């Protein structure tokens, strides 16, 4: 590690080369991570914009802001953009791309050019999606159910399907790169049981990306063919079975939710030990539970189809399996809690997001068990109860994990500290805004308000107003980090190599790292989360 005076001008991956070509043709995993950061942030705001319009419409019981057909397009595109263009890439493509090589002591991912290709595929998919949205949009729901999507919808189903198909390949290539990298590029001494849990989480995520995504890819191909050529594969009036589409769609889309949550769990597993100054409790259990979630996650997909017409016997099987899949997630929650027990807790911004994650993910997960029970599901399926459930996991869980990770590793990525008090404030605003937005939706769903409806009975208005109010607060909470992260790039305190006193190879190199990550190739002779032997955090240097 350099002992000379650390200035912001030391050569690192950001200043090693300038110019647009050096970014658009980079094969440096860290620069590609930043390319992804910009792109997914852009799509996050697009998806958020649709959410805003939805919540505005739902302020009043009448359908008075937009027409019904437009409303269908709003919730469809909100879902598609958020799922495929924000949540699925978010942590893996930004934090994973940046950190996986660093955490295992490698110079780059196994296939740097494929990494760049994966970003370009994402951009192509994004352009297709934007064009689709600007020229009429899609109104089928993000789930594309047939035969509406194949035979009746008058919107741009084919273009949206193709966009998602291409984005799927981006996802597959990222997963492929991570698996090969983790298997083949670990530094000497970095055995499997010394890997950070963030790596285990991304390994498990990559398995799902590799094995699940191709199924939705081929399904979308069939939908496009069916719509274009008027086939009958999914159309009951032509001998087809709409449930076949649903089986193929959910075979991927259920594991997809684990693509969205496992990386966030990996982030939490890094943050909690650091800000408890304690070794993680139950390393093996957390590592194995990630793999278990990846595998079990493929066994439960038809719980999205309980009332669609599947046989009662298969519904029973899938219900039981859905209970089983909750167990490894619960294991993680217990282990994080046990890590904090008798730890020395610092309520830093990342830790606040981690706390938020643990609480909100638990609520979302438990409500998933309600939905897994057949009797309850008959009552609450396709209501706001389901919407609240998955937003607790996706937003209260995954997005908070993403924000926590962005704050935790921001010093490493940018070489600057963000303003801590603003960070904590934003975290609190996000937490309050989130709960005000989505908790009322559990009640609304239980009381019977259906999802995807643009008008509702007047007795539901109060709860809807609360939800919309919450969403504006949440929006403020999301805008704040954008502002102060940008601010910090110019005015933030210069970050030392390890501002948090955290364990892990990424903290043993400079902030920001040099292009090839380490001055000397590291050799690992210490266990992960070795917090008894790690000194207290350095003070961030004043500078800039």
């Amino acid at each position, binding site marked *: 590690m350099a002992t000379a005076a650390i200035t912001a001008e030391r050569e690192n991956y950001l200043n090693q080369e300038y110019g647009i070509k050096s970014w658009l043709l980079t094969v440096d995993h860290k620069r590609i991570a930043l390319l992804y950061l910009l792109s997914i942030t852009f799509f996050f705001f697009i998806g958020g914009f649709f959410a805003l319009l939805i919540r505005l419409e739902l302020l009043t019981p009448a359908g008075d802001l937009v027409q019904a057909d437009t409303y269908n397009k709003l919730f469809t595109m909100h879902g598609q953009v958020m799922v495929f263009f924000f949540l699925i890439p978010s942590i893996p493509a930004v934090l994973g791309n940046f950190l996986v090589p660093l955490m295992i002591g490698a110079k780059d991912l196994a296939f740097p050019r494929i990494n760049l290709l994966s970003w370009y595929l994402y951009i192509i998919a994004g352009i297709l999606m934007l064009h689709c949205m600007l020229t009429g949009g899609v109104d089928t729901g993000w789930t594309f159910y047939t035969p509406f999507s194949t035979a009746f919808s008058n919107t741009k189903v084919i273009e949206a399907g193709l966009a998602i198909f291409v984005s799927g390949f981006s996802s597959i290539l990222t997963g492929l790169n991570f698996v090969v990298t983790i*298997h083949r590029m670990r530094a000497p001494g970095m055995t499997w049981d010394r890997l950070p849990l963030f790596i285990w989480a991304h390994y498990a995520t990559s*398995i799902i990306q590799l*094995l699940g995504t191709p*199924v939705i890819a081929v399904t979308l191909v069939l939908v496009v063919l069916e719509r274009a050529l008027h086939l009958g594969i999914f159309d009951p009036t032509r001998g087809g079975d709409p*449930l*076949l589409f649903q*089986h193929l769609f959910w*075979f991927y889309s259920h594991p997809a939710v684990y693509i969205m949550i496992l990386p966030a769990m990996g982030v939490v597993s890094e943050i909690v030990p650091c800000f408890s100054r304690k070794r993680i409790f139950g390393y093996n259990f957390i590592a194995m539970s990630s793999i278990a979630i990846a595998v079990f996650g*493929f*066994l439960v*997909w*038809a719980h999205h189809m309980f009332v669609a017409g*599947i*046989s*009662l*016997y*298969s519904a029973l*099987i*899938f219900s039981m399996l859905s209970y089983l899949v909750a167990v490894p997630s619960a294991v993680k929650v217990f282990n994080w809690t046990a890590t904090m027990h008798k730890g020395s807790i610092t309520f830093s911004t990342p830790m606040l997001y981690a706390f938020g994650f643990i609480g909100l993910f638990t609520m979302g997960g438990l409500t998933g068990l309600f939905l897994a029970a057949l009797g309850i599901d008959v009552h609450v399926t396709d209501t706001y109860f389901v919407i609240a459930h998955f937003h607790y996991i996706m937003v209260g869980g995954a997005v908070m994990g993403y924000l926590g990770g962005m704050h935790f590793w921001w010093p490493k990525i940018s070489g600057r500290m963000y303003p801590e008090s603003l960070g904590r404030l934003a975290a609190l605003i996000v937490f309050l805004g989130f709960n005000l937005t989505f908790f009322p939706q559990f009640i609304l769903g239980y009381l019977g308000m259906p999802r995807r409806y643009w008008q509702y009975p007047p007795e539901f208005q109060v709860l809807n107003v609360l939800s919309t109010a919450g969403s504006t607060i949440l929006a403020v909470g999301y805008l704040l980090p954008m502002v102060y992260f940008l601010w910090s790039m110019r005015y933030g305190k210069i970050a030392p190599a390890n501002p948090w006193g955290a364990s892990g190879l990424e903290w043993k190199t400079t902030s920001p790292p040099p292009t090839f990550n380490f001055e000397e190739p590291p050799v690992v002779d210490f266990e992960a989360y070795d917090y008894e032997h790690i000194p207290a955090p350095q003070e961030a240097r004043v500078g800039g």
Partner: protein
Amino acid sequence: MSEHIVSLKTNVSVWLALLVLTGVTAGVAFIDLGPFNTVVALVIATCKALMVVLIFMHVKYASDKMVKVVVISALFFLMLLLGLSLADYATRMLS
């Protein structure tokens, strides 16, 4: 891949076996075995696939066990897709 070099004799033997099995598959299709026609066809196809995977694709000689893990995992997940979907279709009439 390993440095193991498969002998010409092995490769040609596999090739001949594959051609013979192809002929057998086509021929057996004309013989009435009832429902077993499908079983026989798939068993023969699987034998052919195994020969291609193990010999032509070197899996038998691979020193690295990850290759076998990947192949078996892919097949396992494919069986999950087919099997659990079939569980629905096979039991619909019973409900």
